């Protein structure tokens, strides 16, 4: 549990800049949610038995969580590692690169969880979700955050410069957002694309959160949890491997 010192360091910085950080993590997804939700919602009275805005809220919760986790674990972690040399300073204390990787991942997941749970709170306040089942979306958001934070940190420790992240964002995150059932049901995709979506973490996050917002238990819950955990675990192992390589030279 030595990594907690690193989590607390990031938390202390965040507290100083909380207003700006919250705004940048929440403004975009909420504007999208209400803009698209109410705008398109007029044309689409009901999707899978839900109002379009409630349907989209589940997708947007997961997408915003993904973006927060990814931005934090790529750009912010890279700034600490590369620009500020904060990691170098930490390594001079009795902490190791493994501790730093764990601290950074859990931190990014925590920040992502805050985004996800705030969007959930807004959804509840606006009456888009009312059943107690939505409470289970809170741990689900953390799990989505953990999966994307771990993968994002691999990108961070592989990066030689800031441009590197554009590849991952443009080639991985944006298409993933389009096929994971965020804006429309993934089931209407051609079979090969649906198969790709089912191998990706965002799809499984949406599959957990959407039924909870609708007010019932998700089907195939354990499979969805298993996929997200697998991404988190594999990402963590990969990030440790790549970070050790980077810092041993």
């Amino acid at each position, binding site marked *: 549990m030595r990594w907690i010192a690193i989590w607390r*360091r990031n938390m202390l*910085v965040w507290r100083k*800049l909380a207003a700006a950080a919250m705004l940048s993590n929440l403004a975009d997804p909420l504007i999208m949610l209400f803009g698209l939700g109410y705008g398109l919602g007029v044309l689409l009275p009901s999707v899978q038995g839900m109002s379009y805005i409630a349907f989209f809220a589940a997708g947007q919760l997961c997408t915003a969580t993904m973006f927060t986790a990814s931005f934090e674990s790529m750009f912010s972690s890279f700034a600490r590692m590369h620009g*500020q*040399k904060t990691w170098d*300073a930490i*390594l*001079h204390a*009795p902490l190791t690169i493994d501790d730093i990787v764990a601290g950074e991942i859990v931190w990014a997941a925590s920040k992502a969880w805050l985004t996800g749970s705030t969007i959930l709170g807004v959804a509840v306040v606006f009456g888009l979700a009312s059943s107690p089942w939505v409470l289970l979306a809170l741990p689900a958001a953390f799990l989505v955050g953990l999966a994307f934070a771990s993968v994002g940190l691999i990108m961070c420790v592989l990066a030689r410069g800031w441009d590197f992240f554009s590849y991952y964002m443009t080639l991985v995150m944006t298409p993933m957002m389009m096929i994971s059932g965020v804006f429309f049901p993934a089931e209407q995709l051609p079979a090969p694309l649906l198969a790709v979506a089912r191998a990706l973490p965002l799809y499984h996050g949406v599959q957990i959160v959407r039924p909870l917002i609708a007010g019932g238990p998700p089907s195939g819950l354990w499979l969805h949890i298993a996929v997200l955990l697998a991404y988190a675990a594999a990402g963590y192992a990969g990030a440790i491997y790549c970070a050790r390589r980077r810092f*041993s030279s």
Partner: protein
Amino acid sequence: MSALRARGLRKSYGALEVVSGVDLAVAPGECFGLLGPNGAGKTTTLKLCLGLIEADSGDIELLGEPVPKRARKARARAGVVPQFDNLDPDFTVEENLVVYARYFGIDSTDISARIPALLDFAGLAGRGDAKIMALSGGMKRRLTLARALVNDPQLVFMDEPTSGLDPQARHLIWERLRRLTQEGKTLVLTTHFMEEAERLCHRLAIMDRGRIIAEGSPRALIAEHIEPQVLEVHGPGYEAWMERAKGLAPRVERVGDTVYCYGEDVEPLLKTLSGYLSYLHRPASLEDVFLKLTGRDLRD
């Protein structure tokens, strides 16, 4: 027992061997200097001793702990002042110390009690709330030094502690380092300021191309490697004068347009100086030893 002991250290990056068989022994309470031109392997040697990178061969013991096997334990009782300041820019002076202490498992109340003394040591008393951006280079360096002391270490590594500082700031750092030695702390520093090494270090090693090529106290090194007097001469006609000087001094060297004469007694040479020649007569220094042993070629 040594505070730091290394035997047969080797480390390569690809085909380039950066550290090629280094042996070190630093006694407790000693101020030990590692000197060398850029790229000599000093920083790599420090990283090996801290267990941040693994040696290809050789063994290290830092404060009684084998490194890298128990490097974490060893680092808990050591401090590090890195070559480039890496203070946390988002934090105040005091927060930098509190957060760094947490990395050592020291909780906020324990470190808070020590903060006034640490700030005082750093010459930053009353500046605990200052932002890092607002500090001068010397202040940042002193804060980095204070940060290295949060765990009350027995040994402090310093990688070029006064690089880039003005003379006032440098003298203040030297004074603090001497104070640490008086408190019984072991210091291991790398530098290429010979004056710094001469003033601070009880003992030093000169490193070049991954090897230690000389070791001893500053005075012993000067006595062993260099004649005690130096005369530097330049100006119009220095080439003709150099020919005369060769018969009067045991060692005469030309570097660019300057003639360096080394000897027990350079008085006879002084009498031959005439015309427009400029000269500097001085006792031999560690810098002469350094340049003699590592050569005058640029290391880029």
